[in-house]
């Protein structure tokens, strides 16, 4: 069978990937720059078995996801920054109730209503927990339309494997950009979720999905269980990519769309005799702390620079990994502006 190759927008690609992953329910509320996801699903709906529902708000859609996931279905929602803020209540409940599902945040510039242009200003919210309590999201950060497809499917799979919510954190530029993608064949999704609330048959105890544990000891036990799971995820699911790191003296750290700009910076730098390399986290949580730490031990490495479309968020995790062994610098733009390779090169030069 020949490969299914298409030229698609990032948002459409993620919707198509979700269908191929066996999507059973999508609940969402329109917001730019991700509305193509729900629009694509709306057009494709008659050809497939999934349920598509436009909710009255992101508060509601996150809670519809809760209900659908607890009923054992493969469910998702997508939104952009202000909408993801509204979903945080649901995210926290879903994490505690250990419900597998997929969130997609096609981020835009903030704070507030902000701009509809791309941004990476939701990093803290995604990886440090935008909702209340001690929970984590598996956070996948695609930097191409192909990875929108791959990480959508991976997100669903990891969510099921660990009974935890996963988030694809991308931005408006990747959501809107068109590229070639190779689509995988559709899978026949067969959920195996004996804990789901599907109606209690005679031969099993009732299933109760809850995040309520009034007794402190019980609540701590649940937290310990969650932390053990997060530890396993941290040990097994870190993903990152290196580009010209072997002899790098300047290590750029960038994810998503800025990692594409930074690849160019590496090439430009090397043309100008600067030994620049790039470490690109593909998972933002768990974070490639160990990989960065190892680089910090290399005597040839002079400095790190985190390049972001934010006022400096991921740089804190780079610093935590480097632990003061090398200088860690930051270069970023906000407001939806994608930094150019030239300005990043200049920022590096200023530190050398």
């Amino acid at each position: 069978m020949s490969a299914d190759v298409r030229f698609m927008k990032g948002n459409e690609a993620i919707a198509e990937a979700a269908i191929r992953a066996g999507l059973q329910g999508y609940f969402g509320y329109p917001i730019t720059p991700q509305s193509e996801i729900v629009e694509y699903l709306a057009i494709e709906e008659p050809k497939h078995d999934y349920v598509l529902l436009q909710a009255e708000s992101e508060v509601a859609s996150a809670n519809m996801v809760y209900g659908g996931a607890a009923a054992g279905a493969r469910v998702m929602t997508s939104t952009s920054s202000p909408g993801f803020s509204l979903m945080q209540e649901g995210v926290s409940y879903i994490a505690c109730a250990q419900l597998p599902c997929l969130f997609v945040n096609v981020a835009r510039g903030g704070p507030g209503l902000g701009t509809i242009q791309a941004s990476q200003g939701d990093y803290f919210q995604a990886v440090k927990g935008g909702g209340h309590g001690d929970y984590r999201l598996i956070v996948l950060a695609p930097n191409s339309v192909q990875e929108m497809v791959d990480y959508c499917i991976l997100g669903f799979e990891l969510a099921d494997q660990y009974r935890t919510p996963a988030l694809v954190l991308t931005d408006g530029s990747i959501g809107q950009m068109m590229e070639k993608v190779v689509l995988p064949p559709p899978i026949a999704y067969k959920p195996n979720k004996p804990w789901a609330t599907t109606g209690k048959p005679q031969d099993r105890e009732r299933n109760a999905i809850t995040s309520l544990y009034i007794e402190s000891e019980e609540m701590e036990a649940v937290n310990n269980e969650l932390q053990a799971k997060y530890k396993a995820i941290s040990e097994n699911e870190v993903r990152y990519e290196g580009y010209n790191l072997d002899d790098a003296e300047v290590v750029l750290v960038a994810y998503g769309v800025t990692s594409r700009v930074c690849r160019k910076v590496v090439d430009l730098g090397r043309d100008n005799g600067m030994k620049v390399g790039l470490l690109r986290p593909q998972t933002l949580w768990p974070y490639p702390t160990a990989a960065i730490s190892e680089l910090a031990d290399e005597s040839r490495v002079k400095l790190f620079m985190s390049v972001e479309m934010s006022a400096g968020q991921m740089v804190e995790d780079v610093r935590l990994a480097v632990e003061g062994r090398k200088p860690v610098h930051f270069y970023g733009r906000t407001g939806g502006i994608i930094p150019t390779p030239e300005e990043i090169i200049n920022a590096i030069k200023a530190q050398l």
Partner: protein
Amino acid sequence: MTAREGYKVVAKRPSTLLDKRMHYCPGCFHSTVHKLMMELVEEMEIQDKIVGVCPVGCSVFAYEYMNIDMQEAAHGRAAAVATGVKRMLPDKLVFSYQGDGDLAAIGTAETIHACNRGENFTFIFINNGIYGMTGGQMAPTTLEGQRTSTSPYGRDVAKVGYPLRMAEMVANFEGVAYSQRVTCTNPAETRRCKRAIKKAFEMQMKGLGTTFIEVASNCPSGWKCTPEESVTWIEDKMLPYFPLGVFKDVTKKEKKAEA
């Protein structure tokens, strides 16, 4: 359960209600409605077909007592959660079991939109005119002049507005198939309450749309009275403002508008 010699069993705990000590205060209708619902689950033989959603409020622990599959939901989000469940399991019988703070304050948007979409699940709405769980604060259904911990001089409607009549309100939505207000103040009303819930479940099974049962309920603890006094309060104070009755029933032929 076997009867003692010389006695006849006239009422018993249904097998679908777990044999546990309930945390509800003595005389609270939450426990009455739990029992009615679980009797229905037993009688209608729907234990394997029913999924419940209980949001935050005194009944957040309903899954501790009801021997059926259940989900606890965030405060106010029961209608959204139940929507997710029903959309994924359209052949199951789904209900939400909500207090007035939950359904008519923090979750009003979810309530209205689920009703307007005609989500095919059953709302069991326990209207006790107060926030029971958090210690008796004012609810959207607190009566004019009624004292609560956040309206210690009585609800001032000029300042905080009027009590919401939800059963009447949702009856206006096209998506709603059935809306009725009942109570449990005496055996006859309690039986009527059970019949109403049964009717709602049956209509849901037929896929007719949203079914909404409001129970004019009590909160002896929050109202700071005895269970007996709470019944009198419902009859004397609540029912004049929150009248019992059927506000919508799509299975009844529409009455011709009078010319």
